[in-house]
């Protein structure tokens, strides 16, 4: 049985994630120390909230070094929403550096409402090519709730939101995977994409 751990650093809707992973047959537990972080087969970086307080919490829990070690070992890490944003170099909201594992700056959305709250589809061709679309279709939608967005770079596969081509919905970069949307709150589509990332991408 593969060990899936959710980083417990006081930032994120952990209850919903536990429930979602349990429903796809991979019941997770919480990572609360360095051993948990390094030894899990898959580490989930959850994230609800502001980037500034998330970075501060990682520091307060002294998790930074263990996270870096895990990343350098190339062990699977899945970031969700803010957790996906944290892996980039710089976070405009926090006005400070992120974990720096991928290049680019997480910036604020521009436009009429400056927030992207609600359900949206992904750009189908890119989604299909990502290998995460098994059991899903063009009309599948996912739940987004964010003000800042992931940067695009050449270090991985980026799948944009269908109607917002410059805003990535997910990325895959070797052992790193990130969802801007909340799969744990995306009903059936969210559970399917979680299953696909665990089984098809990470091969569990």
């Amino acid at each position, binding site marked *: 049985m593969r060990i899936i751990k959710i980083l417990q650093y*006081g930032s*994120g*809707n*952990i*209850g*919903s994630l536990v*429930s*979602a992973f349990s*429903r*796809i047959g991979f019941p997770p537990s919480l990572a609360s120390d360095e051993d948990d972080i390094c030894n899990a087969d898959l580490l989930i970086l959850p994230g*609800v*909230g*502001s980037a*500034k*307080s998330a970075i501060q919490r990682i520091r307060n829990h002294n998790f930074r070094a263990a996270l870096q070690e895990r990343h350098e070992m190339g062990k699977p890490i899945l970031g969700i929403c*803010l957790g996906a944003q944290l892996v980039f170099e710089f976070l405009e909201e926090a006005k400070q550096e992120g974990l720096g594992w991928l290049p680019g700056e997480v910036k604020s959305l521009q*436009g*009429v*409402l*400056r*927030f*992207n*709250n*609600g*359900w*949206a589809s992904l750009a189908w061709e890119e989604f299909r090519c990502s290998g995460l679309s098994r059991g899903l279709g063009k*009309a*599948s*939608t996912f*739940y*987004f*709730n*964010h*003000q800042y967005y992931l940067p695009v770079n050449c270090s991985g596969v980026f799948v944009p939101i269908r*109607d*917002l081509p410059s805003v990535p919905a997910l990325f895959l970069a070797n052992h790193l995977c990130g969802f801007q949307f*909340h799969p*744990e*709150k*995306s*009903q*059936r*589509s*969210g*559970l*399917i994409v979680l299953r696909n990332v665990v089984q098809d991408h990470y091969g569990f």
Partner: protein
Amino acid sequence: MASKRLIATVLIRNGVTVKSYGYRFWRPAGSLATALVNLDRWAVDEILLLDVSRRSVIQPETLAEIRKAKISTPLIYGGGIRTPNDVMRLLEVGVDRFVVESLINQRTDSLREIADIVGKQAILGSLPVIWDGAAFRAWTSSGSVDLDVAMSRLYEAPLSEVLIIDADNEGHYGKFSQGLKDTVLQITQSRESRGLIWFGGLNERIAAELLLHQTTVGVAIGNINFEREIFLSAFRKNLHKGGFNAPVRDAKAF
């Protein structure tokens, strides 16, 4: 951008799930966990859970029911949120977004602290509105306030969306006040945009009309009939007749 949302609403009062009639009369409406599980199964876009108790504090029984439901539909909670600790307790059981009202007027420091924890995108401001015989006024815990003043406070607060409640007509199907819509849209026209969610007295025709407006991001319904399985899917289909193309998601079980 994300599609506009059909939001199912559940009211609780003094620990009991209720159906409201204009916030004056109440009828018990069954188990909260069951209501949440049903709405989750019917694939609504979001669920709005409002505690409308007169002196609401977050009840441990309510938290236990939310935890028990284990839903995979986004959940918004409003009522009795006063401190960052309240928000942490709600986050823990699976609440995603938070409706605040009195914090906007009375405890702005607390609100900023909450925004720092969960982010502005997760905060909605509540604006119950009443007609006092001469004008629409915002109904706050400290009495009624000029609507323009209340809207200004909301627009200065760290939040992403505003929940506009037609308090007089809430619970009365199809009685939503067109005057309220016109007044609010006129006030918001000159301001930086916030997403608007409308609640109270809506029917399919009115909801479709509201959803066509640029700054409307959702309509909240369901206090009337959330126990009827076909109501929400029928409502969504009828929005199409009103001219709004509401996306339909797959409600099959995983």
